[in-house]
C-alpha cells in the first residue's frame, strides 16, 4: 500500500466508513510508516479542534417567529428551489435599493440640519426619573416587605438589605435558593403533571368533554416547566443524562406551546398535546434523568443571583408555581426544616419551600400551610 492511498483511506477510516479488513491493512501501514503515523495523529487532532468550536444557537424568538410566519400563511422563499430571478424582480431590487438609499440620504440630511432633537433631552430625563424611582424603591423596600407576596420579580444580589429580625428556628437549617434547586423542583413538578396530563388525556379520549379543558391546562403548565428546564440547560445549570431526553423535552415544549395558541378543543388536544405526551416515555421520569450543577459559592454568588433574577423576570408566573413563599412571622416556634430555602430581594431575606415537598404530604409543611393561610396559595 502506498502512502497516498493510505492517507485517503485514513480520512474514511476517521468517519468509520472503511470495512474492517481494509481498516486493519491501513492501520498496519500506519504502524510501519512514520509519515503516515504523523498524518493519522494530526488528522485526529484536527478533528478534535473542530469539535471544540463554539456551538451557535438560534435566538430565543426563533421558533416563535417561525410559527408566526407559518400561521400568517407565508410561502416558501423563491431561492429555495433556485428559480431564476425574473427581470422585473431584478429591476424591483434596483428600484428598492435606490429608494432605500434615497431615504437614508434624506434621513442623514434631516439629522444634520435638525439641531434641536428632543430625544436626547428626553432620554436624560427618563434616565433621571428611572434612577429616582429606583432609589425610592430601594429605600422604601428596606422598611416595608409585603407579606404574602409571590416570589419576588427580581431577586436581589446578596449583600443588599438583610432582614432586621433574626430568622425563626424553622429557617435555621434553610439553604440558599439556587438555580439547581429550581431545576430539581421544576423537574419534579413536570414529572407529576406529566402523569396527571396523561390520565386526563385518556379521559378526553374516552369522550369526557370536561377533560379537554383539564388536559389543556396541564399542557400549559407543562410547557412553562419545560421551558424553564430548557433555559437552565442552556445556562449550563442542568444537563440530561441522555441527549435524547433533552430532544424529547424540546419537542414536547414546542408542541405544548403550540397547543396554547390554538382553539381549546379536542382537535387541539389530539393534534398537539397527545403527540407531546405520547412521543416519549422518558419524560415521565424526568426528575431521575437530570443532572444539576452544584450551586455556586464564593465570588460566583452574584452570577447565580443574576441568573435567578433573570429567570424570575422572564418567567414571572413560573417561580411562584414552583415555590411557596413562607411567612417570616408565622414560622416562629416551628422546628427547623431543611426543606426551606432563603433568598434575598429588595425587601430583605425571604423564605420559600418547594411545592412538591408539600404536596408529598409532609405533615409539618401541610400544617404550616394552614397556619399561613393564603400566603402559599
Amino acid at each position: 500500500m502506498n502512502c497516498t492511498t493510505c492517507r485517503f483511506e485514513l480520512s474514511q477510516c476517521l468517519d468509520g466508513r472503511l470495512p474492517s479488513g481494509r481498516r486493519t491493512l491501513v492501520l498496519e501501514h500506519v504502524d510501519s510508516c512514520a509519515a503516515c503515523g504523523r498524518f493519522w495523529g494530526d488528522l485526529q487532532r484536527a478533528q478534535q479542534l473542530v469539535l471544540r468550536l463554539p456551538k451557535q444557537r438560534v435566538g430565543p424568538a426563533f421558533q416563535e417567529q417561525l410559527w408566526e410566519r407559518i400561521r400568517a400563511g407565508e410561502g416558501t422563499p423563491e431561492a429555495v428551489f433556485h428559480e431564476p430571478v425574473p427581470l422585473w424582480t431584478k429591476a424591483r431590487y434596483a428600484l428598492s435599493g435606490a429608494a432605500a438609499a434615497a431615504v437614508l440620504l434624506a434621513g442623514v440630511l434631516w439629522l444634520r440640519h435638525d439641531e434641536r432633537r428632543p430625544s436626547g433631552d428626553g432620554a436624560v430625563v427618563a434616565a433621571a426619573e428611572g434612577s429616582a424611582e429606583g432609589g425610592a424603591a430601594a429605600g422604601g423596600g428596606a422598611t416595608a416587605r409585603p407579606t404574602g407576596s409571590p416570589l419576588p420579580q427580581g431577586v436581589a444580589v446578596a449583600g443588599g438589605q438583610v432582614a432586621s429580625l433574626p430568622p425563626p428556628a424553622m429557617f435555621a437549617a434553610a439553604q440558599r435558593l439556587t438555580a439547581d434547586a429550581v431545576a430539581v423542583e421544576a423537574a419534579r413538578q413536570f414529572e407529576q403533571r406529566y402523569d396527571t396530563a396523561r390520565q386526563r388525556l385518556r379521559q378526553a379520549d374516552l369522550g369526557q368533554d370536561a377533560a379537554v379543558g383539564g388536559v389543556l391546562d396541564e399542557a400549559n403548565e407543562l410547557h412553562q416547566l419545560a421551558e424553564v428546564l430548557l433555559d437552565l440547560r442552556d445556562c449550563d445549570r442542568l444537563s440530561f443524562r441522555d441527549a435524547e431526553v433533552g430532544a424529547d423535552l424540546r419537542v414536547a415544549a414546542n408542541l405544548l406551546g403550540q397547543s396554547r395558541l390554538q382553539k381549546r378543543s379536542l382537535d387541539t388536544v389530539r393534534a398537539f398535546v397527545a403527540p407531546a405526551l405520547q412521543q416519549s416515555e422518558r419524560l415521565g421520569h424526568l426528575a431521575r434523568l437530570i443532572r444539576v450543577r452544584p450551586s455556586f459559592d464564593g465570588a460566583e454568588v452574584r452570577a447565580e443571583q443574576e441568573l435567578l433574577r433573570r429567570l424570575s423576570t422572564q418567567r414571572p408566573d413560573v417561580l411562584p408555581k414552583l415555590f411557596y413563599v413562607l411567612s417570616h412571622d408565622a414560622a416562629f416556634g416551628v422546628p427547623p426544616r431543611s426543606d426551606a430555602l432563603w433568598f434575598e430581594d429588595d425587601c430583605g431575606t425571604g423564605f420559600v419551600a418547594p411545592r412538591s415537598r408539600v404536596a408529598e404530604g409532609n405533615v409539618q409543611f401541610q400544617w404550616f400551610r394552614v397556619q399561613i393561610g393564603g400566603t402559599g396559595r
Partner: protein
Amino acid sequence: MAKSAPEYQPDPVTMVAYHRALAEHADSLKAYAARLLGDSMAAEDVAQDAFLALYRHLNQVPTAAFRPWLFRVARNLCLDQLRRRKFKLSLFRDLQRDDEQPFTPVDTAADRPDQIAESREASLAIEQAIADLPAKFREAFLLCEVEGLSYEDAAAVMGCPVKTVSTRLFRARQRFQSLVSRLIKV
C-alpha cells in the same frame, strides 16, 4: 417574493418529526449558514426560511430525509444571498466575527483570562482556516466534519456523487491540517 402557500395540515406523526427536526437541527443549520455567509443574523433568517420551506413541503419530504433536505435548502438560500452580496461579504464577515467571538468562549473549563484569550484565539484561527478552504472543499468539510452529516446526506446536499464527497473531504482535511498545523503541534 414568495410562492402562495397551499393550505396543508400535517398529521400528528409528521408534526412530531418536524418539531424534533426543529429541536435538533436549527442550531446546526444556523451554524452551517453562518459559516457560508459569514453573517450570524442572516444565517438565522436562512435557517428559519429553511424550516418554513420544510413545513410547506411536509407532505413531500420523507421524515428520514428532513436533515439533508434542510441543509440543501439552506445551501441554496445562502448561495442566493452570496450571489446578491458578492464582494461586500468579506467586510461583513470580519466585522461579524469580531462582534461575536467574545461571547462564545471555546472552552468553558478555561477560566483564567489568558486561557480564555488563548482559546478564543484558537477558535478564530480554526474558523479562519475553514474560511480559507476552497469553496468546494469547504462545503464537504462543513457538512461532514463540522455538522456530522453522512457522506450520502452530504452528497444529496451538494448534488454530487458520494465518491466526490469523500475525495473533497480528504482534500479539505489535508488543507485544513496544514492551515492549523500550529495549533495541532501545541
